[in-house]
């Protein structure tokens, strides 16, 4: 099962602190060897300042070096705390707070800085301290503190500052880790705007940043009601981001595919594009989710699609982001299969359908009835005696075709007239 687990592929794109929840999720699933996971977890923690969690992994016999480190960290924290306290006090003054809240993006941060410098003896160094402190707090696992400080920092620091991008990422990570999805979403938008402005030197850097952004966005979007539609919007409809997926992180296609399949409003329009991308990247990346779509829409092999669908359930239930979507996905996938059947067949036995949809025959019948009612599938009727679903054939007679086409002509003629009108206007504008 570990074959389809993406934790390893995703980790390079994520922050250490973001990997921790992934590891914690994957640990009890028994996909990987538990010893290696614990070791991994421990190593990960040792790179951060979260000493207490690290000590927990050792149980009772904690190495002395770690105790030592703990003391050092506490000392460092106290030092920073002493520095930061006056700064925070200033920033929490009501008038300053008000200013920060009313600050508009366009004005930049200069005005506030000037104000603070004049009234409270604020200096650029203080801003630096703010950044350092929040970084330290983040490392220690105190995400709330770090998110607050980074909020101040973002409002005070210059956009050209080399730490600015880091601060944006840090803020986003903090919000994710304290599960403030609304804030996280705002931060995500800010970060995206910053990246899209392309302040980077090379194209490669830009692509990498986009790939990072998309990975971090998964946390937000899969925990946010309309998130899946936004995934489609960002991953599929934004060409630069789609390119980044294709170049750097084809495994994101799984999340995109799930998002498309489960999305109610976007499914119809996006499915075609998604299939195209999956087809192109097929040699690069395959997993049961994408294979399912391939089988259904490219190979037209329903048996295999069925097998893949079963695998999908397993994969989804073991995926940190997708466990919640499992039932949605199952339902939508079945619907897709059924829809396909309806289009191709005139008559299907319910027994076969049940087999294909991984249900008992009775379940299937009930399900189909529901389906026909909710989705108003045209002309589909259940012949209960023979155990068949019969589609009403809707072949278009030639007479109708001619009618249709003729109607269309009017429309086209109108369009031409409009176009001509438009071009004439353009010309007159140009002439003037």
């Amino acid at each position, binding site marked *: 099962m570990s074959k389809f687990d993406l934790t390893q592929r995703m980790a390079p794109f994520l922050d250490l602190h973001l990997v921790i929840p992934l590891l914690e999720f994957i640990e009890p699933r028994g996909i990987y060897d538990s010893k290696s996971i614990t070791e991994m977890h421990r190593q990960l923690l040792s790179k951060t300042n979260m000493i207490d969690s690290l000590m927990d992994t050792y149980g009772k016999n904690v190495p002395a070096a770690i105790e030592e480190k703990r003391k050092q960290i506490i000392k460092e924290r106290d030092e920073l705390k002493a520095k930061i306290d006056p700064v925070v006090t200033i920033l929490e003054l009501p008038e300053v707070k008000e200013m920060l809240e009313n600050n508009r993006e366009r004005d930049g941060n200069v005005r506030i800085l000037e104000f603070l410098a004049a009234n409270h003896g604020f200096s650029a160094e203080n801003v630096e301290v703010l950044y350092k402190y929040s970084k330290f707090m983040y490392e220690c696992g105190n995400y709330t503190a770090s998110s607050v400080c980074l909020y101040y920092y973002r409002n005070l620091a210059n956009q050209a500052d080399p730490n600015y991008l880091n601060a944006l990422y840090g803020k986003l990570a903090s919000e994710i880790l304290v599960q403030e999805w609304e804030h996280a979403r705002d931060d995500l938008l800010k970060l995206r705007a910053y990246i899209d402005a392309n302040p980077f030197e090379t194209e490669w850097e830009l692509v990498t940043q986009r790939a990072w952004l998309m990975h971090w966005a998964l946390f937000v979007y899969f925990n946010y009601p309309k998130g899946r539609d936004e995934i489609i919007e960002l991953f599929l409809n934004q060409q630069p981001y789609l390119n980044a997926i294709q*170049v750097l992180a084809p495994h994101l296609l799984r999340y995109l595919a799930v998002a498309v399949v489960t999305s109610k409003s976007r499914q119809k329009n996006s499915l075609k594009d998604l299939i195209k991308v999956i087809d192109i990247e097929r*040699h*690069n990346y395959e997993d049961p989710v994408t294979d399912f779509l391939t089988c259904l829409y490219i*190979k*037209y*092999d329903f*048996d295999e699609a069925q097998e893949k669908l079963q695998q999908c359930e397993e994969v989804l239930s073991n995926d940190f982001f997708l466990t919640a979507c499992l039932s949605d996905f199952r339902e939508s996938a079945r619907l897709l299969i059924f829809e*396909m059947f309806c*289009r*191709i*067949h*005139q*008559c*299907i*036995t319910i027994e*076969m359908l049940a087999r294909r949809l991984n249900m008992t025959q009775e379940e299937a019948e009930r399900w189909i009835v529901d389906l026909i009612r909710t989705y108003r599938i045209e002309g589909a009727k259940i012949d209960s005696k*023979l155990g*068949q679903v019969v*589609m009403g*054939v809707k*072949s278009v*007679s*030639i*007479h109708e*075709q*001619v009618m249709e*086409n*003729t109607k*269309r*002509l*009017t429309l*086209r*003629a109108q369009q*031409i007239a409009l*176009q*001509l009108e438009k*071009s004439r206007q*353009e010309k007159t504008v140009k002439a003037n």
Partner: protein
Amino acid sequence: MSRFFKARGGSDSDTDSTDSEIEDEPKVTKKNNYGTDDLDFAAGGEDDEKRVVRAQKDKKFDELKGIIKQNRDAKSNKDLNKLLTGFDTLTKAFEKSKAVFQRQNIGVPRFFIRSIVEIENYANKLWDDKEAKSGLSKNNAKALPALRQKVKKYIKELGTPVTDYLANPDEEGYETPEEEEDDIESEDDGVLEKSPEKAVAQAETDDDRDDDVRSTSSWSSEPDTSGSDTDEDGVSKMEQLRRYFLKKEFRGDDKGDKKDKRKQRVIKVKEAVEDDDDDWTPVSREKNVVLFDPKEEVTHDVMIKKLNEVMSVRGKRNTDRDQHVANLRKLLEVSFAIISALFEINVKISDHMDYESFATTLATVNNLLTVLIENENVKLSVTFSDEDENLKDDKEDYRIQGSILIAVQRLDSELAKILQNADCHSNDYIEKLRGEKDMCNLIERAEKYVELRHHLGVFDKYEVCKIYMMRIEHIYYKYKDQCDFEGDVGEMMTYLCNKIYSLDEEKQLRQRAMLCHVYWLAVHDEWHRARDLLLMSHMQAIVDHSDIDTQILYNRTICQLGLCAFRHGFIREAHQGLSEIQNTQRAKELLAQAIGMRQHEKTFEQEKMERSRQVPYHMHINVELMECVYLICSMLLEIPHMASCEFEMRRRMLSRSFHYQLKQSEKASLTGPPENTREHVVAASKAMLNGDWKKCRDYIVNEKMNQKVWNLFYNPEPVKVMVVRRIQEESLRTYLLTYSTVYATVSLTKLSNLFELSKKDVHSIISKMIIQEELSATLDEPTDCLIMHRIEPSRLQMLALNLTGRGGFSGPGAWFPGRNERQGDKQKGTGDRRTGPSDGKRGSNSGGVWGGSGGANQPRRNQKQRAF
């Protein structure tokens, strides 16, 4: 006598000799004697008439000699005016006497040529010698350039005799009568010995100018220009000498030690020295010095000194080279001069080098490279200016201006030219192809050298890129096992390309490297990587703006990619890739594998350019194979398509050339069994159109086609399997489309038996067709059969359908809105560029059908409005 003559012989034809009167006298007489005696011998025992002629000839000779003598006087008096007129009369007199000479079959007399050469040398020397020039009187100063030009021109007119004068003394010697042998021999010796010596000397003088001379292109253009460039005369002399050397070498002379041109030269001097009496060498050299004017003495002293240096270098070369870096440095410079001199051998750029001289040059460059690699303190770079050069001080690093990389580059292009001009079907070509291997090795070594010395910063970035590029260009078209290279060629390729991507600042090399990489990947069946790389490079968009060589490479790459796609079963992609080239009818031309047919449209220059761009034969892509693959692709795509639009009045064509072939075969009154690949594919297409997949398969996969097509693939079996499978599938599709009106139901089992496909495959193919609305039918699952819904429309219905235009633009019925839309586009003037041309074509077609004029449109519009 002999010594005197020898010495004089050594000096008198020397470039700078200003012989004294007294010395002239005997020489002339000698010359005279020689001439007459020669004739005597030839005419011995002939009748009176001949004697008369002989007297006539003697008279002419006397006349010429008289003028020559006058010229000498003028020369010694530095009276250039007189010399000029003297030269004129001399040439005139010679013209007059030419007829007589011709009757006697003696061509141009040697003494005449010698005198001409003397005058030229004299003029050149004066020209070069600024001081002497300024000392001339006004008249003389005026006459000097005129004289120089004239002589030069004349020599050029005379052409071969002048060169033969230096080159061919031996042969003439054999004809001479015994009693004169001494005389002649001494003469020959003189010439012989002088030449090598002079050659080295020239190489030395070359050294002095070596910097500007290095750019060989300026050399090669030399014969056309007669400007006042001081190098020119030296160069033209060099030319003659070199020709002399070459001739010798090619005659298989025993002296022709071909291992190393540089060695050879030095050795030749030595041999010449040893051949003779031992005491000759010092004497001649003394004489040389003594005979010079005081002014010139300096320069020649230097020359001799350098000559000695070279000789000492040669001596030490094999023993303690490393300790005598000073000599080594000389050696470097000399070898540099020699390399450029070797390149110089072919005068015109469009001409190609002889293979032999290529081989020697290759060896020389190789040696130079060895020397450079072994000695770290010798720096060779184009970035050093003349003043920076450090040739003597052995405490610092030696700095020499020049570039080994450029030499390698030049050599590479020479090889390409050699291969271009060789007959590709002869053994000779294979022979010459071996040079390619050596060239590869050399480039590899050069690359190593670059990497070894890269930290010194002596290389121009562009040069380095060029070296990598050359390696790529020698690798990219070969199969893995064809390159003798240990290690992974693919990795090597990636490494080299990455180097270029990171180094190259201009886009051009980067594009080329990218294309080569794609080509390589395509050849090695890495379809996905090749495709992705090509797409990422955005070459399609920019290739139109790049130079022609890159465009050719692009065409080649696209073709190779198309073939690769075909091997992988991506028929549509293959068709797309190949059609770009195949539909033009000029495939060979576009791939630079043949010169275009319409030659009369091109100027000579254009044709020459085109010739120089041709790809050598061993890199050719098999055009017949490509065409066949293209037609097979077309067949697989087009036949089902044709079946599906049977009821549309005007079909959309996917591939015009395929339709052309089909039509051609329909026109033929008698169709025999297919002969060539094209006919095979056409026959197969007809079989497929009838739904007979077995027949179709047999036409595509059989012995004949194996030989002509399939065996040319690297791994033919999977490709054949793929093609057969595709034939089955497409035949099934065609069958269903064609006979859908005949059947009410078809059992899937029957279909699967008929086309020998599994039921699952049949099911998936049919599903696909239904979903894509190609086939109006549905499946009945319980009975496992296909129910057809298609009803054949009646004629009226069909017409009505066509009138209203079913599929957007495709039907002619769409003419009204379609045409108007196009009109609108035209007015806007901003039609989509991509669809622009095809739309235009369709527009002109429909113009043909509908008469196109407004008048014809009018009634139809009325009719249409009624339809509203």
